[in-house]
């Protein structure tokens, strides 16, 4: 079933296959091997049964648990949901500490902790809670605006502005998150989301700025071009991996940098570069090439990108669960040797998986290029590829988990911008909080120890990203 060492090490944990070999047919560098022992639903159950049967002698009793009892038992146990939630809380607490350290006034007040303990704690609380409230107001809903709208002092669009910003930020992250999650299920770690997204932005952006067709033609054409170029960039990785055994982590890191440099060269070329500007920027994207906004209002930036992202997640979910290719992909992830024996073409599956991942990341780049970016520039994408890795890990590499994680990260980003504007706390803090969330989620044992969680009777959070 699985051939990963930490699980083998546990007695009775594997339906031990006799041919215990290295997990991947990679003669080259395979130290970056990802354990695809996934937190996926079906698999987690397998782990569960295998691990638990010797310990719980009466499994039929467990099935009879009433909902209320199950809820009570799971509430403070190390299941995925509780661990994720507590990891977020922990990360926000750490973020609060950093805010205090980073703010000169509050930091100085701490020198008087012994003289004015009440004021010190009060100031700190006021500062941190205001900042996080601003974050919430910028990401979900601002009660003040709702109130003003109720009294007809502002438009209804203002009320939806925070949500719109969250969705706008979430769309590319969901795409790049899926681009990491899909290959992860095949045992491949795609660090190349950034490069694939850049190629996608080049493809989509070029169609968007060079052609002037009716929007109904040009938009799908741009999206297609983005997916195609990103897919090619991913396919290159897959083919090299399948043919030569070169490791995808190294390949994708290198291709990220190559794509970045290529973008820097591309936007300076004649026909692409804006002739009226002296800096490195392309011609503006044509209106007919832009993804249409969900609500045609200049304030609400949310566009078709988020719809496409959710559709892509649905498609990936269907593919992984029901599709033939999805089955082959997961089989290769579980045990490539067994998959090969069963007649699955491992190399082809790897190449196509990476192509699919590249196409998804390419769509992420396109959704920025045709959605929110006015033109192509070298830093238009920020770090969406790398943030996509975090999104995928937080979403436990399941398609709908990625959607949830993408929305959370989008909300943090949108809220972070509001926090910077209103509380003067730099938006860079968001990156730290995001990284901390993923770090904690990846080490459930740590979260479990900090909060003294019970061992979950139902779910094995251990089967998450931790090996062991």
């Amino acid at each position, binding site marked *: 079933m699985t051939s990963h060492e*930490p699980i083998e090490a546990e007695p009775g944990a594997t339906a031990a296959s006799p041919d215990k070999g290295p997990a991947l047919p990679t003669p080259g560098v395979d130290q970056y091997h990802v354990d695809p022992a996934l937190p996926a639903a079906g698999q987690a159950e397998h782990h569960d049964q295998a691990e638990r049967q010797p310990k719980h002698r009466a499994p039929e009793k467990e099935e009879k648990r009433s909902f209320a009892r199950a809820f009570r038992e799971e509430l403070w146990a190390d299941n995925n949901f509780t661990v994720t939630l507590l990891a977020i809380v922990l990360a926000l607490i750490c973020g609060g500490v950093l805010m205090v350290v980073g703010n000169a006034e509050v930091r100085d007040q701490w020198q008087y902790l012994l003289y004015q303990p009440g004021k010190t704690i009060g100031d700190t609380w006021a500062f941190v809670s205001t900042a996080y409230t601003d974050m919430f107001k910028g990401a979900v809903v601002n009660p003040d605006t709702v109130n003003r709208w109720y009294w007809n002092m502002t438009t209804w669009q203002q009320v939806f502005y925070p949500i719109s910003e969250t969705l706008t930020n979430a769309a590319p992250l969901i795409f790049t998150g899926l681009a990491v999650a899909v290959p992860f299920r095949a045992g491949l*770690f795609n660090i190349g989301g950034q490069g694939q997204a850049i190629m996608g932005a080049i493809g989509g952006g070029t169609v968007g700025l060079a052609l002037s067709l009716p929007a109904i033609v040009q938009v799908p054409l741009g999206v297609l071009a983005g997916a195609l170029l990103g897919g090619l960039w991913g396919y290159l990785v897959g083919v*090299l991996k399948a043919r030569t055994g070169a490791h995808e982590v190294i*390949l994708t890191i290198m291709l990220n940098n190559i794509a970045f440099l290529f973008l820097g060269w591309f936007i300076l070329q004649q026909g692409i570069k804006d002739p009226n500007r002296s800096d490195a920027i392309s011609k503006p994207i044509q209106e007919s090439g832009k993804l249409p906004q969900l609500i045609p209002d200049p304030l609400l930036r949310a566009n078709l990108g988020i719809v496409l992202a959710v559709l892509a997640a649905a498609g990936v979910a269907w593919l992984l669960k029901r599709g033939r290719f999805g089955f082959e992909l997961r089989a290769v992830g579980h045990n490539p040797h067994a998959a090969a024996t069963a007649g699955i073409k491992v190399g082809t599956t790897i190449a196509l998986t990476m192509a699919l991942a590249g196409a998804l990341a390419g769509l992420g780049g396109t959704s920025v290029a045709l959605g929110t970016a006015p033109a192509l520039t070298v830093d238009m994408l920020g770090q969406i590829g790398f943030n996509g890795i975090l999104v995928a*890990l937080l979403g436990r590499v399941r398609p709908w988990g990625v959607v949830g994680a993408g929305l959370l990260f989008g909300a943090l980003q949108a809220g972070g911008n509001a926090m910077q504007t209103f509380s003067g706390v730099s938006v860079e803090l968001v990156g730290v909080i995001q*990284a901390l969330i993923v770090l904690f989620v990846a080490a459930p044992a740590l979260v479990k120890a900090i909060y003294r969680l019970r061992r979950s009777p139902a779910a094995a959070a251990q089967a998450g990203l931790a090996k*062991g």
Partner: protein
Amino acid sequence: MDVELAVPEAYWTRTRKTGAVMVVLGLLATIVFGALAGSENARFALGETVDGAGFDIPGTFGAIFFGLVALAAGVAMLVTGRYFGVLTGVALMGFIISALCWQMSVSPVSHTMPLGFIAAATFTAAIPLIFGSLGGVLCERSGVVNVAIEGQLLTGAFFGALFGTLTGNFWLGLVAAAVGGALLSAILAVFAIKYLVDQVVVGIVLNVFAGGLTAFFYEQVMRPDTDAYNFPGKVPSWPVPVLSEIPIIGPALFNGNIFSYGSLIAVVVITIALFRTRWGLRTRAVGEHPAAADTVGIRVLGLRYANVLLAGLVAGFGGAYFSMLSTTGFSKYMVSGAGFIALAAMIFGRWHPVGAFFASLFFGFFGALTGFLNSISSPIPSQFLSMLPYLATIFAVAGLVGRVRAPAADGKPYVKG
């Protein structure tokens, strides 16, 4: 391996394949560069400036001659199927010099290349890569994957600038830089070794973490008051009296500072320590076969902790290069990918300190060359030159230049039992 012994060796070995590529490159250089080159002389000056002693090569002649050198080396590889390293080096050098003769002879700005300056620029560009890749070697030889080099360099740069300014003492800043790198390494160690989280995952997350944290404090603390928090001063230069006058390599190697001398010393010390001491033997044993090492009484996890921290010290110290040598002061995301090139250099150097050193120099050379070609307004886009290190690494890991093999237990957490 024993299976391979029975099979007769195929004709298209690695050397012959590479030879074929070199023949193509040689033909390209001879015909295309030769045709494009101008009649002006390409001048190679020995010193750090364009004046002074040097030698001239007529443009067209040089482009064709060195193209033929590359061609000959390629043919030799094809025919003999041997001498991979030497012939590849000769062919590549021939190709590069041929290209230089072409570019310099047609340049509208200058026909002179100051070799001393190029050598110095190469080494300077290589310094952070050397420290970073050594950090990678130390980590990975003991079986912990270090993708967090970028973050370690960045943390080092930040700590160096911050504490160098706060204490008003440059050297304390350097110490703080090393400690900063080690602190980030400590997180890597705890999550990878204690909590058994996938090491690549931790590394990637730590890069984001370090980038965000340093950028946050840069925005909150350093930017509002640069003088108080971000003004560490610049490292003094320590030229060696006579040796720094040596043509070409003198300015590079003997007109240095603590970073350049330190990088050379670190390479020597780490090489000796890894291959000639008890600690080195144990480290390699733990990296290759932790269970066997455990059996003979080596504390696998303890050694891994120590090595990961040591790697952080080295990489963090190297990170101070960015905020204390190349510029004065920290700015956010200033490492901008050097950590990943260092990772590439480590792989290119086959997890060996000396290999990593030369790979770093190789990558540094392309950096220097890019700068030079820009300065003579070469039509070759600098972006494509900057891609060369990454392309070279792809060729290396794809086995086209030579198979690289990681320590066997690299990336695999060790659970006793």
